């Protein structure tokens, strides 16, 4: 151990210890001469008390000198430094210091009753306190992927302390490689002069995911050339491992076997623990906020440092927007112990199926196959089949979708259909032998996506080679929400459809805005969609019975019909988007007639200062914390604002922050240039802080000397 001083310049104060001696020598008060009669008694009293008085005078002198010397020494902040600390300090001289404080999500890990960020903050403040008066410093708060703020080193300790004290826990990932690089650049600022060393103090949890060791190590540019900084890693975890378990993913898939609103929800749970764990509780919660309730409880066995998937089934009570959350019991890092998912559970769609060519033979009936497809147990559609006469009497406002099958023409219902669609209803029109293209054009007045033209026969059904001659679907828009569900081999179910006859459409109207979802191999549109007002219309060029096409016997028929009905009822709008990851921008498109007014985060705070989308009506938001985010919309017509559950979205924590595996010290110090340049302070203390402070003892001594002086005077 050796003695050093934090403020050696203040040792000049030790001269104050000579004040009592100087006063004794130079300012000794001359005694007043007084004639006195009873001098014999004075002389005798003095003789008797002289020894005691002399001892008291010496003690007084010592106490006063000790008082001043101790106070002066305490101000100079003496300390004993361990030999290894001296060695680590390298050559003497003032140093410019950059303190990097990690505020990433993993720093919320609780260890010993404190978060790692609390510990790192204490380490950073202690390191700041231990700096000498001639040593400039800067603070880099590291949280998030963006470039951190790294000011040139300064002597404004108050500001630096404030920055450390006010650094907030983020829910983002920190890129410490970028942060130490920025800190090194700040240390190389030309304004930094008069320093012999440049130091980097990194207060972090040493999780491996925060570092990119394939990048070059930071180097400080100095007038003498590039120089490696002295790096001290202040380990907030104090060398301990950080076991963690978290919900890594959550997937919801429809499960018809469970019910009409049934889902199979699969949670992927990861563990970063040394031992396997059994009977780990996993709960599935449904709803959000006050309405949240636990729907399913399960137990799972988690292997050591492994992953396990658990599927849970749940049948939602009704259709519409819903939130599910899979949650583990909170552990040391609670933020990643639950994942939410926003779903749009298909609503029950009421469909009016208008059978234009009823038949007593069921399989010859035009509506037979469609009704069968829509009436399945997992189907959200409830069809009502009527003939043309019934259609005339039907009240359209009781239905979400109207499906016209081989209907000669809408007749008097044409105008009502138009207003039905304009008001948000869906219309599906399939062709047939009875369809009159001219009357459709006259009665529906441009409601269809394309005007009907003539029927084309690709091949006569039953004729030799008809199967090969029949038209096939080509140029299918797989990105369309209706068809997006067909992926991989499932697409074969559409591509294999043979169509013998189909209606040709006239070229697109100027004002049509139609979207062709599929064409036949001759280029003729097969499925065309158009938006009309707040509703949609889908036009199919062939029949939904086996007369013109064999689609009804293909595997794609049933899902396609259900999704067409759901789409036309507005049940498939943009609800297949994946959850966001915290810190990633997310675009939110406003529904027609609405505007995004505010975003409500999981913390309950409204965010109204939102960046608008360039191309569409909507906003871009970058969620800064995981959880369920809700969207408040403003009705452009009425000006009223309300939460739109359909726009709510879930934000997941950054999975890299959940992985709390720590770097080996040797690996990190080697990256910084070896032990000559870097070390890990496992006790969390900077070298300068690993000391035995003496100033408090000196102040105690000064107080004791002061009290002793008072007692001697009494």
């Amino acid at each position, binding site marked *: 151990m050796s003695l050093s001083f934090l403020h050696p310049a203040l040792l000049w104060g030790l001269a104050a210890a000579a004040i009592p001696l100087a006063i004794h020598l130079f300012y000794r008060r001359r*005694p007043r001469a007084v004639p006195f009669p009873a001098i014999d008694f004075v002389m005798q009293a003095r003789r008797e008390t002289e020894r005691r008085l002399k001892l008291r005078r010496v003690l007084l002198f010592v106490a006063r000198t000790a008082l001043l010397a101790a106070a002066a020494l305490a101000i100079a902040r003496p300390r004993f430094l361990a030999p290894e600390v001296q060695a680590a300090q390298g050559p003497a001289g003032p140093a410019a210091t950059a303190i990097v404080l990690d505020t990433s999500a993993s720093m919320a890990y609780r260890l010993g009753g404190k978060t790692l960020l609390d510990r790192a903050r204490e380490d950073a403040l202690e390191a700041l306190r231990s700096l000498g008066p001639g040593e400039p410093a800067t603070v880099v708060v590291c949280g998030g992927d963006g470039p951190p703020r790294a000011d040139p080193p300064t002597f404004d300790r108050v500001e630096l302390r404030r920055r450390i004290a006010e650094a907030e826990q983020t829910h983002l990932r920190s890129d410490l490689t970028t942060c130490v690089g920025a800190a090194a650049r700040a240390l190389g600022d030309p304004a930094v002069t008069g320093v012999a060393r440049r130091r980097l103090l990194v207060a972090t949890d040493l999780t491996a995911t925060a570092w990119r060791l394939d990048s070059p190590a930071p180097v400080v540019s100095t007038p003498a050339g590039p120089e490696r900084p002295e790096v001290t890693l202040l380990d907030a975890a104090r060398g301990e491992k950080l076991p963690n378990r978290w919900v890594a993913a959550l997937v919801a898939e429809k499960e018809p076997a469970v019910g009409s609103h049934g889902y199979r929800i699969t949670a992927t749970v990861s563990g970063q623990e040394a031992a396997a764990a059994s009977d780990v509780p996993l709960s599935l919660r449904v709803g959000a906020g006050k309405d949240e309730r636990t729907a399913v409880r399960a137990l799972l066995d988690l292997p050591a440092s492994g992953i396990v998937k658990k599927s849970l089934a749940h049948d939602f009570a009704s259709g519409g927007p819903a939130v599910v959350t899979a949650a583990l019991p909170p552990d040391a890092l609670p933020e990643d112990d639950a994942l939410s998912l926003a779903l749009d559970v298909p609503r029950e769609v009421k469909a009016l199926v208008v059978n234009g060519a009823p038949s007593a033979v069921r399989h010859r009936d035009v509506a037979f196959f469609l009704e069968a497809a829509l009436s399945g147990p997992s189907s959200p559609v409830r069809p009502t089949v009527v003939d043309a006469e019934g259609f005339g009497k039907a009240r359209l406002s009781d239905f979400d979708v109207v499906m016209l099958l081989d209907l000669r023409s809408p007749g008097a219902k044409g105008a009502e259909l138009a207003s039905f669609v304009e008001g948000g209803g869906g219309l599906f029109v399939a062709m047939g032998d009875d369809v009159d293209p001219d009357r459709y054009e006259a009665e529906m007045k441009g409601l269809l996506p394309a005007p009907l033209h003539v029927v084309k026969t690709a091949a006569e059904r039953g004729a030799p080679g008809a199967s090969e001659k029949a038209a096939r679907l080509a140029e299918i828009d797989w990105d369309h929400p209706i068809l997006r569900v067909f992926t991989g081999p499932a697409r074969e179910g559409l591509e294999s459809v043979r169509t013998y006859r189909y209606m040709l459409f006239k070229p697109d109207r100027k004002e049509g805005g139609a979207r062709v979802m599929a064409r036949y191999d001759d280029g003729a549109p097969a499925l065309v969609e158009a938006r009309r007002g707040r509703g949609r219309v889908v036009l199919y060029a062939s029949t939904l019975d086996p007369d013109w096409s064999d689609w009804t016997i293909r595997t794609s028929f049933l899902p396609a019909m259900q999704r067409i009905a759901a789409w036309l009822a507005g049940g498939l709008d943009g609800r297949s988007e994946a959850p966001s990851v915290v810190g990633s921008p997310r675009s939110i498109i406003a529904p027609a007639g609405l505007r995004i007014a505010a975003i409500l985060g999981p913390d309950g705070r409204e965010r109204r200062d939102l960046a608008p989308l360039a191309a569409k009506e909507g906003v871009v938001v970058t969620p800064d914390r995981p959880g369920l985010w809700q969207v408040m919309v403003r009705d452009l017509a009425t000006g009223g604002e309300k939460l739109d559950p359909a726009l709510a979205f879930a934000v997941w924590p950054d999975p890299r922050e959940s992985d709390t595996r720590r770097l080996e010290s040797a690996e990190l110090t080697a990256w910084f240039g070896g032990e000559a340049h870097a070390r890990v302070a496992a006790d969390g203390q900077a070298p300068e802080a690993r000391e035995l402070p003496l100033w408090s003892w000196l102040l105690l001594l000064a107080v004791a000397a002061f009290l002793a002086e008072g007692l001697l005077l009494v």
Partner: protein
Amino acid sequence: MTLAGKRLLDPEVLARLAGLRLRVRATAEGVLSGLHRSPHHGQSVEFSEHKEYAPGDELRHVDWKAWGKFDKYYVKRFEQETNLRAWLVVDASGSMGYRGAEGRLTKLGYACTLAGTLAHLMVRQQDAAGLAVFAGRVTNALTPRAEPSQVNAILETLEALTPGGETRIEAAVEFLAERARRRSAVMVFSDLLDRDERMIRMVADLRRRRHEVTVFHLLDPAELDFPFDDPTLFLSMEDARSVEARGRDVRRGYLELLGKWMDGLRRTCGESDVEYVLVRTDQPLDEVLVPFLARRERSAA
């Protein structure tokens, strides 16, 4: 009375004492008739005692009745009314020149005031007052007389005194032993700061010579309280000695020594039937004189 005498005799003190009659005990010897009883046995009307006849005794005083009873010659003795004969012994040594504060009388000034007042009172009631001043030796002396001019003589002598020389009470005692052959009242005004430790014994010897002795021990309040705090160079007032000390350091020891010394004085005086009166020089004169005269009056009654 001169102006000096008038200054010494405080009129307020005199006015308060005007109603008192000073009496000394019957054993005091006096030549003038007055209120005091004389220890001389003469032809007074009041029988005192018998004495066995001795050659030289007057035959007219032989008690023939006693001869008839005892067959021995006894002579009658009588008490005679007489005046007080007093010696005022004033210490004028250097230490008596001390006063602890401006505006306060020095110890010598206070002693002279006391002595002058008493002389005035005694002569006024036709007692005889004398004076002995000592400072190393007896420097002034006036034989006791009851004439009014005696007061002026005493006051003039006192007025002319200046403090100086050592305190040597032995000189005064020797003087009185030689000059005061008749029984007298001896009043000593001194601070008693005599380096000779036998001093108070010598004073007590006067009592054995049948004198009635009163010691007025005059001390300044500063001597009794020692109000010094700072470093002080204390200078002797009778020789060249000095000592430097911080007042607050030695105060406790000084007061202890002073207390012991005064206790010793009181004890010795008490044992020798010498009246001891401690006088602070900031004390009003009447507070000293009235109790003293009252005691004398009671003892003479």
